[in-house]
């Protein structure tokens, strides 16, 4: 394994779109080649070297490349987007689209992330030690094909629109979530350890949601069917089991209608 370290040297005036900060783009390149990789600020092209001091050469492949960004990236977008292997660690905050359309590998953000973290993700892992803003693991605007696989774990709180149009994979928020969880989802799992304000599972066709705290405003389209003992993310507890969204179309399997499942801890 080879480690490439990026040390921020300058804060961009407008956001830096750094789609190149991925093990895939770095693989096989020297530190100076990496510093020459392209980024965008508004309608102008820049290089990573304009904003970071790069040290260390990358490994031969993405899987053999670890990237450490040693500092704050509050104004850097698209870190680790579309990556397929290797790791990215940001020691600080990151802006929007961390790990968007990601297929594999691992991302660790020690601070907070802005919105669209893990958007349309297909595989791999994202770990955020702080909070996330809105649209964690959601679909791109307008698209009906959301997160398909992989795991996102937010240790803090998250905002709105978590797992919209989700098809697969897992999102775990260890803190609280505001509104809209798994809206329109047709698969996947969302686990919220804290409380949710409301609109959980609206127009959800398939998939699973676990809520450990309270849901302040329950959707009328969910119906309680039973009470079950479950082990969820390493914790055993008793949950009320709801099915829904009863206002949506649902597919049938062996003559039985398939609903989305919502489990709320008793």
């Amino acid at each position, binding site marked *: 394994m080879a480690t490439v370290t990026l040390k921020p040297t300058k804060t961009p005036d407008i956001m830096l779109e750094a789609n190149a900060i991925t093990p895939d783009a770095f693989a096989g390149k020297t530190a100076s080649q990496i510093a020459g990789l392209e980024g*965008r600020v508004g*309608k102008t*092209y820049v290089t990573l070297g304009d904003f970071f001091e790069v040290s260390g050469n990358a490994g031969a492949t993405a899987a053999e490349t670890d990237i450490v960004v040693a500092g704050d990236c509050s104004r850097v977008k698209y870190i680790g987007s579309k990556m397929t292997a290797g790791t990215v660690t940001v020691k600080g905050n990151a802006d929007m689209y961390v790990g968007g359309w990601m297929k594999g590998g691992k991302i660790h953000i020690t601070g907070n992330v802005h919105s669209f973290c893990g958007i349309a993700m297909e595989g791999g892992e994202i770990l955020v030690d702080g909070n996330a803003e809105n649209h964690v693991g959601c679909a*791109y*605007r*307008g698209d*009906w094909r959301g997160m398909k696989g992989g795991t996102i774990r937010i240790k803090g709180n998250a905002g709105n629109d978590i797992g919209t149009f989700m098809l697969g994979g897992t999102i775990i928020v260890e803190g609280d979530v505001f509104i809209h969880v798994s809206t329109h989802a047709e698969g996947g799992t969302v686990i919220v350890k804290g409380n949710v304000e409301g609109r959980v599972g609206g127009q959800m066709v398939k998939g699973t949601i676990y809520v450990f705290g309270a849901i302040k405003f329950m959707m009328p389209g969910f119906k309680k069917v039973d009470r079950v003992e479950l082990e969820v993310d390493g914790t055993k507890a008793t949950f009320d089991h709801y099915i829904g969204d009863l206002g949506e179309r649902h597919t049938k399997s062996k003559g039985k209608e398939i609903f989305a499942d919502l489990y709320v801890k008793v």
Partner: protein
Amino acid sequence: MSEITGEILIKGGFIIDPAQKIDGDVGDIAIKDGKIVDRVSNAAKVIDAKGKVVMAGGVDVHSHVAGPKVNVGRLFRPEDKLFKSGITHAPTRMEMGFSIPSVLKTGYDYARMGYGFVMEAAMPPIHAPHVHEEIHDTPIIDEGALPVFGNNWFVMEYLKKGEVENTAAYIAWLLKVTKGFGVKVVNPGGTAAWAWGMNCLGIEDHVPYFDVTPHEIMTGLMAANEYLGLPHSIHVHQNNLGNPGNYPTTLESLKLAEGVKTHNKFGREQVMHSTHLQFHSYGGDSWANFCSKAKEVMDYVNKQKNITIDLGCVTLDETTTMTADGPFEHHLHALNHLKWANVDVEMETAAGVVPYIYDKDVVPNGVQWATGLELALYAKDPMRTFITTDHPNAGPFIRYPRVIKWLMNQKSREAVLASMKKVDKVIDLTNIHTIDRELNLYEIAAMTRTGPAKCLGLCNYYGSLKPGMIADVAVYDLNYKNMPSDPEKIESAFLRSAAFVKSGEIVVREGEVLSHGHKKTVWVNPIMKENPQVKRDVAQSFAKDYTVGLTNYPVREYLAPHPFVIDVNVEA
């Protein structure tokens, strides 16, 4: 509009011009002040076309590129733009989208392909100002727009009583106020029925309330169109689009042209243009036995000389369907469960928009792909058969070069067929596998420029390299004497023209756009004696039914600031 001046000489290319029956002769094309001329001076700018093919600019007979439903598609499909909008380089401006490109990308992409004229295929009359604003914002290409008449309340009221002259007077008025080009008919009667949640699937079905049939609407509009002597014929999107077993309805509609004579001074020979025929050429009675009836349909088209058709080829892409056929879009939404937009346009029409993914591994989609190509391959007269994708309904227009590749090269068709998961099934349900015909460049030129120009009544302006024509000239990097063995080179040559001269100005070199050109809006101005009854009917209806006043309805001059008006003197 600033006049285009200057001389250009396109030198030593293989010239292909079906209008003059020129097929690959090596020669020069001279251009002066925006027109093709016999010769130019030594001062002319020279474009070296040696070893390359030279054709007139392409003419698209049917494409949805401007107006409210196109914009609904753009607005409700932001994902159509994802990862498809790079940083642009001067002189071009930002380009966006794939199946529903932005106006700029629309103009640039058509120009890159060497197209000079595009017909917007469905203009809701009340939204004509919006259509013209978008047309004006689309650079380079000349455009016209066809207002829709097939579900218009005035038309249905007049035709219920068989009043062809009043229908004609209403058409003349509407073309003037909307700056429209001709008579479009979409699912005649069916779209009106949709306001009652119904449809007209057969041509003898009754339209609720109006008590008129699709048969009567088409026959009446055809008679009114010839009464006026418009440049284009009626342009028909037939009933029962897209459904298994719809081809008998298609043949019944086409037969309405039998015995009808053309009446025009524009060189047009057909009385009905039947659009995106692929969507209307299906057999079977369910999606399980859904099959191609392209042969049966083309057998009829081949012998019936007063009709023209365009293909509507499925290109196997993710695209956005949009049509004034409101009930069809609802039906499609119920099939694929994707998002659906629907609108009723007061008094006139309706529209729907639904995204659709044509998947080569889904049997009916494979059958549709084959059906579109079969229509072209069974066609005996390329001057009556035009290449389209009903953009964006069956695929985006930037796939025309791919369709051309499939038509010119059997190997490339077979490769697509072989890549289908259920290839055997698709072969059983279609004829494509049995056809070894490969179209040549002369036939392609007829199907993409000379034929469509004639069908639109524009053969005195577009579609040929004769002296006097508007100087739209495309140069493609294909050697007429030595065509590439790799079919991909056919597609890339037609996608990025080596050079494109639009109205006497070089707008594209090596596939790169150099200029925003001098686009024009083409519309038809019928000049006829005032019809007092129609005048009164229109005034009354605007006072009683419309949500806008009559004075606010017409398209203002400033919305079409570069007009190219074709006057039609109607002899009464």
